[in-house]
């Protein structure tokens, strides 16, 4: 009897291992979108950055922090609200207007009381939740990732984030979707144990964020039609800028450096030929 139980346990264990061995994380190949900021000469479209900030502000920021960003960044060279009239972004009227909506926690220097004071352009983006536990508690146990670096923190980040945002699909029949989870073929996941339908296990995984970008979810100030696709492209452009705010400056400086180096190296080659002209080697 005991021997039989062992044998069954062993078989079950082996089956579980075999399943584990075949369990593979899958995701659909990200969509291929062309971005204005790709390549050595690619630049951000400032209007798109402004629309993207609006999507982040109106939609994403209710759950996702961007703790590496400060409001002043929005008005710096290359930023969504940069204005050559205000080289110091702290003076930028758009930045000041954005900041006027926020209050940040502080300590009253006279009384030592915990207070909230009006935010300044130098303050970091106000986070939607005071800490990770609060963020998880409000989101069914899932932690909305900080978006400051999200484009760099994912392989092929622009295409990946765009695909996730626009990729939501109704779960195919035979797929058991857990409570507070949503099916997205572009989300990496392994749905072997959730699949009871016929045919191969669908690619993709579950995401704790419901589909956010719907038609007219935001109203763009430049009267661009707010389709989910447009909203996704704009917010991805904004996040791509935020992941490295100096990237346009980097490409511009790089161009000058390359020209300099090519000329300098050319002169060195000419000097080399001249100095060695009488040496047989």
């Amino acid at each position: 009897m005991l021997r039989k139980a062992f044998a069954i346990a062993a078989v079950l264990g082996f089956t579980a291992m075999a399943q584990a061995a075949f369990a593979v994380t899958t995701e659909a190949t990200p969509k291929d979108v062309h971005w204005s900021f790709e390549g050595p000469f690619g630049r951000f479209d400032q209007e798109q950055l402004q629309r993207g900030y609006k999507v982040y502000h109106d939609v994403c920021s209710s759950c996702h922090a961007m703790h590496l960003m400060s409001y002043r960044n929005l008005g710096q060279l290359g930023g969504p609200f940069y204005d050559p009239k205000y080289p110091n972004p702290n003076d930028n009227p758009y930045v000041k207007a954005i900041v006027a909506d926020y209050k940040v926690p502080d300590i009253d220097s006279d009384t030592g009381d915990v207070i909230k004071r009006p935010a300044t352009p130098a303050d970091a983006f106000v986070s939607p939740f005071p800490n990770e536990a609060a963020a998880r508690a409000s989101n069914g146990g899932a932690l909305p990732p900080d978006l400051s670096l999200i484009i760099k923190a994912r392989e092929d980040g622009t295409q990946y984030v765009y695909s996730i945002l626009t990729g939501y699909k109704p779960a195919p029949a035979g797929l058991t979707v857990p409570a507070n989870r949503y099916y997205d073929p572009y989300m990496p996941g392994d749905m072997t144990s959730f699949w009871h339908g016929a045919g191969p296990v669908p690619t993709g995984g579950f995401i704790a964020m419901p589909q956010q970008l719907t038609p007219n979810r935001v109203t763009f100030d430049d009267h661009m039609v707010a389709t989910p696709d447009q909203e996704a492209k704009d917010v991805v452009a904004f996040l791509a800028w935020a992941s490295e705010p100096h990237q346009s400056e980097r490409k511009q400086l790089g161009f000058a450096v390359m020209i300099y180096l090519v000329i300098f190296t050319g002169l060195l080659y000419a000097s080399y030929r001249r100095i060695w002209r009488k040496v047989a080697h």
Partner: protein
Amino acid sequence: MSGHSTYEPKTGIERWLDTRLPIIRFGVDLGDFPTPKNLNYWWTFGGILAVCLITQILTGVILAMHYVPNATLAFDSVEHIMRDVNYGWLIRYIHANGASMMFLAVYIHMFRGLYYGSYKAPREVLWLLGMVIYLLMVITAFFGYVLPWGQMSFWGATVITNILGAVPVIGPSITTWLWGGFAVDDPTLNRFFSLHYLLPFIIAGVVVLHIWALHVPGNNNPTGVNVKSEADTVPFHPYYTVKDGFGIGVFLILFAAFVFYNPDGMGHAENFTPANPLVTPQHIVPEWYLLPYYAMLRAVPNKLMGVLTMFGAIGVLFILPWLDRSKVRSMRYRPTARIFLALFLLTCLILGWCGAHEPDATVIPGVGAGFVLGDYGINTDVWLSRIGALLYFAYLIPVQIFLPLFETPLPVPESISEPVLSHPASVPAGATAAPEKKG
């Protein structure tokens, strides 16, 4: 150093200084150093590496002014450098890509040495010092990669430090000692930062010894033939300062292309997520320049043997001057050895490919893992790594010892100025050097 000095102090101050600290003489002698006139562009990588080391130290010193070696602050301090420090992004990108560029240059420099037999007598100490520099570079680069405290930093540090736990008896104690605790944490980050700042200066010191050891026997050259007379040489300055300068210029163009147009290309997306001891990334891989060793480590099923294989792969290079029995230095005159060296280069590249992939990844796509031999199918990364590791050591030990017994080298020229092979007509009949017979 070596040779006679041509410096003659002309002013009173120079004469006064020359009898007290002959530093001007030292500089002039370095500039006048007789250098073989036939050095090709592969010889410019020494100068390129000097530029790399200086660049790394300068950018590193500036980065250290803004970086905070603390487990809770390190990641954000690196982003502070990228976002708020004036040209911090430029300095950091030069430093991060500079490490890759320096390894690219050092690998070319080492293969140059292998091809032209620059490690052979009387340059064994020169080669040994070079290997010490390389080993220090590997350790320094590893410490540096941990500092941004992203996921790959943290888990790379965890994997590599755990490797040392395989050492019998004292292994666990060594690991605890390295960590400064019982896991990779704040004390680990602090000591890695301290050592990352220290080691480059030790490298610089060994570089001085390396150049000293170079200046005693003088440069090897593409023919591998010793310098016979002054006609074979030119003064280092201006002939090689300008040639090295051109090489450095070309190298800087490649360097700048990475820094300005693909600065994260050699990094990992995973490292833009702050370190989290509770979440293990799916794939933990080192930087590209360490991938061949990583493949060899994973190729061996036994952990301790894997560690020994990995360290042995570097260690065997130290004794290479005594393994190689060939009397001909340059592979220009060793056609068979040349084929073996090409295969060795291919082996290193294949091992690098293996290190970048999962052990159970299939090598030839669409065929499946194939017949299971031992623990893995034969068409997997692991078995390719095993073959690669075997070929790696086969080249460095048996091939070095036995190939010279069987190969017939081509005739070697009498001197640098008379390369018989490129100008056979200019050599009088019968004046050709006797071909180096077997051994």
